């Protein structure tokens, strides 16, 4: 079998949380293009329908399930519904997450509730989903879990306590999945750099990526092939790893300071 054939996901079922927009939508579309049927979940049902349309346009089936990943009952019901519809889950993409209330607060200004919600959204949700899906994967003897962390899971940020803690926690949670369930289950992570999801305000805030080594921000579609790569047989021996997709940001470490150390990059 040729190396490109190993990328095909025909017959696979992928559950994607946070599939209503941005990276989640791009990953759902890419996995569907590679042949997988999709369970698209998000808190806001209206947004998921558009993602489901993309999947169905590619000739794949899509089940839409409203789900709050911070509520374990909601997660368990989503997994039951997925298994009821498709009878199997091959791929779980824990993508739900993001900045929550209190992001950027100084330590003294973080309330108990802000901390709880931030950790629940960016760390506990992935645990709930993994916990619900893994028994099924073990029963079938195989499964792929892809967790979406962040560059902030690997480096710190001033007044960035909640998000960095949760995303770093997700990395070591994933490595422990590897130590516990390999080789039946593969658990890897994607760490996206700066992706504005087409939002002009975010593009402006990040200065259109001028300080990123590649000189630009990421486009959501660029994450799709990585997700397919990690879900495919090309990476059967990869486990417990973080793949950083950030235009070179972490290689030099200039992102936090917004200038390149020692040698200025091409000025614009």
């Amino acid at each position, binding site marked *: 079998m040729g*190396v490109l054939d190993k990328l095909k996901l025909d017959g696979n079922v992928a559950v994607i949380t946070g599939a209503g927009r941005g990276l989640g939508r791009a990953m759902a579309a890419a996995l569907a*293009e590679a042949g997988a049927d999709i369970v698209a979940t998000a808190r806001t049902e209206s947004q998921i329908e558009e993602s489901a349309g993309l999947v169905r346009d590619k000739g794949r089936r899509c089940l839409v399930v409203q789900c709050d990943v911070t509520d374990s009952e909601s997660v368990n019901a989503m997994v039951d519904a997925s298994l009821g519809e498709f009878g199997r889950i091959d791929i779980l993409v824990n993508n739900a997450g993001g900045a929550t209330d209190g992001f950027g607060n100084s330590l003294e200004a973080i309330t108990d509730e802000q901390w709880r919600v931030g950790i629940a959204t960016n760390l506990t949700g992935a645990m709930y989903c993994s916990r619900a899906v893994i028994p099924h994967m073990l029963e079938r003897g195989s499964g792929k879990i892809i967790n979406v962390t962040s560059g902030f899971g690997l480096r710190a940020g001033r007044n960035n306590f909640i998000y960095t803690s949760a995303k770093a926690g997700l990395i070591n949670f994933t490595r422990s999945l590897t130590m516990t369930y390999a080789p039946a289950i593969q658990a890897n992570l994607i760490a996206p750099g700066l992706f504005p999801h087409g939002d002009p305000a975010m593009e402006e805030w990040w200065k259109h990526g001028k300080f990123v080594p590649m000189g630009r921000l990421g486009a959501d579609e660029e994450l*799709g092939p990585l997700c397919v790569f990690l879900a495919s047989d090309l*990476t059967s021996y990869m*486990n417990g790893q973080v793949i*950083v997709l950030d235009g070179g940001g972490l*290689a*030099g470490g200039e992102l936090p300071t917004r200038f390149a150390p020692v040698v200025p990059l091409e000025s614009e």
Partner: protein
Amino acid sequence: MVVEQFSLAGNAALVIGASNPLGRAAAVALAEAGADVAVATTTRSQQEEVAANSCANEIWALDRKGFAQAIDAADERDVDSLVERAVSEFGCLDILVNAQDLHFAQPALEISLAEWRRVIDANLTGVFLACRAAGREMLKRKTGRIVNISSVLAERGMANGSAYCAAQAGVLNLTRALALEWARSGVTVNSVGAGWIDAGGFLADENMKRQLERYLPYKRLAEPEEISGAVVYLASDAATYLTGQVVWIEGGALSHV
């Protein structure tokens, strides 16, 4: 189609160190993905020349173009003329894979300066020379993909492995520095961090191999073909925003420590 983004049809590739199992698997995977592939050795040993020729045969059997050349990968004239030949035969060079590999294990107190230099030259300086020669071509065209194969011994130490470990770690940070230098020139530079494979060398000792297999989460070593898929990914249009990174395929070995 997302799968087509991984295709390398129409690309010209050069794999140095295709005389060892990881380099061979990378060269064959690139050819399977559609690239024409030239291959070269790490040293001018007869055994490596035979292995490189056999790899070129596999590439031809896939109906791809290519050639095999025996070189000393630490000799700048050899490396420069190899890259010139690849550019002249293919018309350009899109992909460079550095898979040079010279195993060496000795207690530090017994390593002569000449031995140290030989190991660093083959495993690290050779990678720099190849990146420099290929980089000249790639920067001219403002496009190119470089993939440097390194090892778990770049990230973890090993007793009696000082020279090899230092060289492998050097490859990782050479990768990051070049990635930044060439980030705005259309050239990405990444590394594939390979797990333990059964390639003789450090694992020629059966007892050590069995101990290692017990320690690995997969309870087995990797097949070279399980690692080469990452080379195809990094060399393709599927990885447009990825540079200066190591993609590890190591069966969870690094999650231990």
